[in-house]
């Protein structure tokens, strides 16, 4: 059973919302249903389900259990959960499909960042001895990374602003994006004050709520369900040291390694969708993939994570955005990226192709 014989045949996502009134599971119910409907299969036909979410965001222990109700878990189904972005849930479901005894799987990711204070919550993922007691908020950490990148001479603040301007322009045509501005200009962005020097507010992601779901199928089942499935040619994730102080935060060796292990050989890509939640990270990720910001590959045509950052969904949204372009025929080869942990600690790459 070749690992490449699995494809995305259905997907759905909510818009990225600043402050959604529905609960996380209420966001998921119609989203999961829409992905299954697009795949054209019955809910009970799904061989395996995997969900990704974070109870720290929801603010309740075992919150992930009720999310499963969006998949319809009675009578009991075969399912799993990852305390991670939905991209990792999809990875587990993709692994499960390779067993060969089932031919469809569902994965979803969801999160509401709006009820909590990200500065408090995300300090908890740092190591409990040296960093968590200092409680560095994610923007301050990203500011250290941005400063290191500037000091290395690899990028300028103008480059950061260009990333943001591109995101705002691209997001203008994405109905699911939260921050969009077809008229964003680099000079105007650079005129804004610092939030955490050298980062300005627009270099940072918005606070977002959202949910996303994908349906995968194997081989001929995928071909029968979808006219042009998005074939998963490679899927890999790699992790670096937890402590940002012991790694080179100006580059992303785990992204480069994951891409290589996923089979990305530096060949042409039509689209790349990156979970770069801070503008400097887009430059770091592009360099680790050997791509130029202004090369032939379209970078974050959806606007990317700067245009909407529903944590625990945002990585899977990148895969869905890449898959959508394969399925609609506008791209033939696409790479999607998801990340986890402080300052790009863990990185996932999914390589998709049309047939």
């Amino acid at each position, binding site marked *: 059973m070749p690992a490449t014989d699995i494809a995305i045949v259905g997907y759905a996502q909510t818009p990225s919302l600043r402050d959604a009134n529905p609960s996380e599971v209420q966001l998921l119910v119609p989203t999961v249903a829409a992905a299954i409907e697009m795949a054209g299969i019955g809910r009970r036909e799904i061989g395996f389900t995997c969900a990704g979410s974070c109870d720290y965001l929801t603010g309740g222990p075992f*919150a992930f259990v009720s999310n499963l109700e969006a998949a319809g878990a009675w009578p009991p189904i075969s399912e799993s959960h990852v305390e991670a972005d939905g991209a990792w849930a999809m990875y587990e479901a993709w692994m499960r499909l390779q067993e060969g005894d089932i031919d469809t799987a569902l994965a979803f990711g969801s999160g509401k960042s709006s009820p909590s*204070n990200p500065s408090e919550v995300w300090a908890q993922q740092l190591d409990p001895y040296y960093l968590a007691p200092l409680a560095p908020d994610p923007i301050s950490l990203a500011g250290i990374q941005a400063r290191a990148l500037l000091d290395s001479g690899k990028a300028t603040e103008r480059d950061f602003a260009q990333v943001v301007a591109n995101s705002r322009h691209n997001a203008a045509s994405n109905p699911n994006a939260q921050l969009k501005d077809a008229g964003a200009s680099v000079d105007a962005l650079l005129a804004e004050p610092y939030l955490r020097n050298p980062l300005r507010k627009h270099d940072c992601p918005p606070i977002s709520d959202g949910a996303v779901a994908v349906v995968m199928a194997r081989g001929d089942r995928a071909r029968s369900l979808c006219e042009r499935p998005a074939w998963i040619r490679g899927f890999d994730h790699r992790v670096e040291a937890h402590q940002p102080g012991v790694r080179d935060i100006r580059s992303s060796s785990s992204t480069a390694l994951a891409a290589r292990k996923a089979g990305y050989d530096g060949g042409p890509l039509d689209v790349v969708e990156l979970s770069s939640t801070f503008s400097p990270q887009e430059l770091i990720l592009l360099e680790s993939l050997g791509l130029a910001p202004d090369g032939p590959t379209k970078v974050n045509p959806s606007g990317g994570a700067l245009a909407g950052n529903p944590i625990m969904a945002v990585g899977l949204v990148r895969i869905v955005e890449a898959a959508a372009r394969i399925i609609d025929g506008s791209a033939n080869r696409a790479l999607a990226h998801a990340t986890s942990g402080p300052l790009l600690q863990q990185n996932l790459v999914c390589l998709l192709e049309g047939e």
Partner: protein
Amino acid sequence: MTDTAKEDLVMEHLVTLTYHERLTDNLNRFADGLLEERIIGAKCPSCGRVFVPSKGYCSLCVVPTTEADEIEVPDTGIVTGFTIVTPVAYYGQTKTEPFVYASVRLDGADSTIGGQDVTGVPQSELRAGMRVKAKWKPREERSVDGMTNRGWSGVDGVVESFEVTGEPDAPLDEYKDHLF
């Protein structure tokens, strides 16, 4: 190795996480109803089961429910199961004596409301199947402030307890599929 006693290094790491959350629309309507002594649930448009309170969807059919699907149910029902909790001291525990923790299926509902006190009968005589009626708190003491989107504290702020009515017990068939 030396036999000199060393003190353990103790590091305190105090964490505060603050969440600001509004009730979902369905729970907001449930809360408003409770303050007026009305218990509102939602009837699934697909299977017809009634959930109290509404989750905003039917978890069996996986279809959303809306305000149009919401109905009022009476404040009478059946004890479907219970336990007597002997409290141990832990942070937040206010009880000191054994207390009842019962699930109540309201008439017309398919779900149960858990964690309810049942009064009007000695704990030793409490049994599943007993018919009960809500004993509402005085209007000025009612509060829905403790209600959350996570399913805790459903009616606690407005219902003092469920009082046994003295009617004959409900037959097992009336609640055996609705125990929890």
